[in-house]
């Protein structure tokens, strides 16, 4: 009742484009699916693969086991055939390589030849997708439609691809028929087929972000690409900065002078932004910083996933100032949560972080339509009459938040912000009294921020004995693990943090008091959330399940480890 496909080959073989189309076509037809990528830090060659899982409802993770292996080269077969199910199938090109003796699961399709006949070798993928459709018992029509849409402007491309698709379909249809039963189609309305970076790009634009300054860096570049494409039609400026230092400082300038601004990067680029973060804190300038994490330190594994920058981001930038840290858990939630980041930044006039990672950024899922009316655009500016004249940018208030106006907004009023310690007007000071008052004022915002934090999501058994704790992009996989553990009779629940700082502790404290066993699951080597929990609450988590090889968790890994622990 579910199908797991892996398609693998070298970088530059154009797998992505066609798999994106296939995914979209399936979602259009009503299937629930997830589509993930495993790619190398190179442009051509090497070994890349993508996984597609079509399962009842809307699956949260792809799995290791493979029903259909599309092997665009022999390496793919050799690396992955161990995980092919006994009843699985291998689509391969017999002109490129032969399957080993005794391998009976082969579906030979002359990918290269058919592609060349259709108009070019690059379409071997398209041929393969045609064959894949046969195995899943589907027609080519929806993919054909999408091909026409996608390549509408590039003359002849759609036609050639359709030829290739059909050739693959026909070829496979000659040697076999549908051998996998797809799950039944969902009846829950229209669904988007969208990846994490697109969710964030769209959320930023729909939150009124009007300036993105950034420097390309995997896996954050997709956000930049999204907004750049939209800048043709929407009032948003995307500027490729000369470096990440410029990126954050530009964004701060734009925010100061009145627009919602954002920057996005990954760990290395973010390191260069630390001083700018501190400037945002001192000048009380709203800013949303998206960090799409990847394995470090230094250049690390540029195209892979990790959750290892949490502690760095919590403390990044010298000196002390309030910040909020939110994270991307699911495609459903991230859209609204990035909007929340913009709202908090404006209301608290301070930097707000949004943590994503490669796993979230590059994963497509079928998700329901978003409700744009739930998005906020409250700039939290002081109206005429709501601020003292002459205007004081840093007026000391009980909440720590000073009334904010924009430069140029009111005749006769100027707005002065300062990276030195300053008085209410924004002028440099050095005396102890004002310094203390300003630190206290800034720090008071933390109290307000703490009240804004959402308690972590609770899922699973209502009276759990085992509690799995996680944050960020592990949401889906832990959820699937919880289901599996419950199915095995273990009363399990998941407590999953979207909002990380100030750390919401209520639900955590009450659950930890109840359960027999707690376990923190993180894609890092340090157990960073686990440490944060102990620092903030004094409570220790019983065990950490940590993975730091650059790959996302699989549900069965978690299930196995939890069972071992018990």
């Amino acid at each position: 009742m579910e199908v797991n496909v892996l398609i693998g080959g070298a970088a530059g073989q154009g797998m992505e484009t066609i798999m994106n189309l296939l995914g979209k076509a399936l979602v259009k037809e009503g299937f629930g699916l997830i589509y993930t990528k495993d790619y190398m830090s190179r442009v051509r060659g090497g070994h890349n693969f993508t996984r597609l899982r079509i399962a009842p409802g809307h699956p949260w993770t792809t799995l290791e086991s493979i029903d259909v292996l599309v092997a665009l080269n022999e390496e793919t077969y050799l690396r992955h055939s161990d995980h092919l199910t006994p009843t699985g199938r291998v689509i391969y090109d017999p002109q490129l390589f032969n399957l080993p003796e005794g391998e009976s699961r082969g579906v030979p399709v002359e990918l290269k030849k058919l592609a060349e006949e259709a108009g070019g070798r690059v379409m071997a993928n398209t041929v393969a997708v045609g064959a894949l459709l046969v195995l899943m018992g589907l027609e080519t029509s929806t993919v054909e439609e999408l091909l026409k849409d996608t390549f509408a402007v590039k003359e002849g491309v759609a036609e050639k691809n359709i030829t290739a698709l059909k050739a693959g379909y026909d070829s496979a249809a000659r040697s076999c028929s549908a051998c996998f039963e797809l799950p039944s189609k969902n009846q829950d309305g229209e669904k988007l087929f969208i990846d994490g970076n697109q969710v964030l790009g769209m959320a930023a634009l729909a939150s009124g972000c009007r300036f993105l300054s950034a420097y390309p860096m995997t896996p954050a570049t997709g956000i930049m690409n999204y907004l750049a494409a939209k800048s043709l039609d929407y009032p948003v400026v995307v500027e490729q900065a000369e470096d990440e230092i410029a990126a954050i400082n530009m964004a701060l300038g734009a925010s100061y002078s009145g627009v919602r601004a954002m920057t996005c990067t990954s760990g290395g680029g973010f390191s260069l932004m630390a001083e700018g973060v501190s400037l945002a804190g001192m000048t009380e300038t709203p800013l949303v910083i998206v960090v799409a994490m990847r394995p470090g330190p230094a250049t690390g594994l540029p195209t892979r996933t990790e959750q290892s920058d949490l502690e760095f981001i919590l403390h990044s930038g010298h000196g002390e100032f309030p910040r909020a840290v939110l994270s991307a858990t699911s495609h459903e939630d991230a859209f609204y949560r990035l909007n929340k980041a913009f709202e908090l930044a404006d209301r608290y006039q301070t930097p707000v972080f949004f943590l994503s990672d490669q796993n979230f950024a590059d994963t497509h899922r079928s998700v329901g339509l978003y409700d744009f009316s739930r998005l906020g655009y409250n700039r939290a500016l002081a109206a005429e009459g709501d601020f003292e004249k002459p205007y004081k940018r840093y007026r000391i208030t009980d909440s720590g938040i000073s009334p904010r106006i924009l430069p140029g907004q009111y005749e006769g009023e100027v707005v002065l912000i300062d990276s030195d310690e300053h008085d209410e007007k924004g002028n440099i000071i050095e005396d102890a009294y004002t310094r203390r008052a300003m630190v206290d004022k800034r720090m008071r915002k933390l109290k307000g921020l703490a009240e804004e934090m959402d308690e972590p999501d609770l899922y699973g058994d209502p009276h759990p004995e085992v509690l799995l704790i996680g944050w960020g992009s592990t949401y889906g996989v832990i959820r699937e693990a919880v289901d599996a553990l419950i199915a095995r009779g273990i009363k399990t629940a998941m407590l999953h943090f979207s909002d990380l700082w100030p750390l919401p502790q209520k639900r955590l404290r009450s659950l930890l008091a109840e359960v027999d066993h707690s376990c923190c699951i993180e894609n890092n080597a340090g157990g960073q959330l686990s440490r944060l929990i102990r620092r903030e609450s004094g409570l220790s988590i019983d065990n950490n399940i940590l993975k730091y090889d650059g790959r996302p968790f699989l549900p069965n890994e978690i299930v196995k480890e939890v069972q071992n622990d018990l």
Partner: protein
Amino acid sequence: MTCKAEHYMTGETAWCPGCGNFAIREALAGALAELGLAPHQVLLVSGIGQAAKIPHYIGVNGFNGLHGRALPPAIGAKVANTDLKVIVESGDGDSYGEGGNHFMHNIRRNPDIAHFVHDNQVYGLTKGQASPTSEPGMKTGVQVEGVMVSPLNPLSLALVMGAGFVARCFSGEKDHLKATMKEAINFPGYALIDILQPCVSFNKINTHGWYKNRVYFPEIQAPQDWTAAMDLSRQWGDQIPLGIFYNKPHRTFEESRAALKGEPLSFRPFNPEELSSLQNDFL
């Protein structure tokens, strides 16, 4: 609402008596007044250093940012509100040293920003280390054997990077400075003035007298001649030319961005609900 020059001068300065910064401040105040720019229409962006304290002493909008990082927020601020007259003012260390990468690349962008560099050829605030423009041989607490590297020539560099407006002034020629500032502020695009400025506390080589004895006003036939400008920019030593060496506008950053036409982005209304059709891409 516009003001007289005096009205732009606010706050108590923390500069040393006799410093060239004072004249630069007065020239700026004069330029703003004569251009009829009201305080709320102007944004002064600076980094960190003695020169960079200027936003505290000129009563317009101010962004006193990080050391070396005056230009990036200036661009951002301009994007958000194209109605603002944006002026970047900072030291030579700030602009050409720590901030060198932004200097180069913002010239390429050509935003409509005037950039006034207080070039005292030394790091003033941190007590006298060499700056990128320090004279070879100058001894300091760090350059104990004297500066060993050749100075950076900001004007030649700006020309090579494609700047449309390149000028050199001297704080001791205040009227010329003020007039040049006005031209720079009105220039459509990035306009650089490198302002020679004595630092009485730390630069014992390039004193007021040293500059005074050397500066002159060459007759500049065509400030559209790049090669002639390059030649002037490279004159240094016994004769130091002052003036606008190059003045030739080209397409600005703002002109090249569709989104920047019309009302400033900062003041355009917005309603998220109207964007729900963005989802069509993913259906």
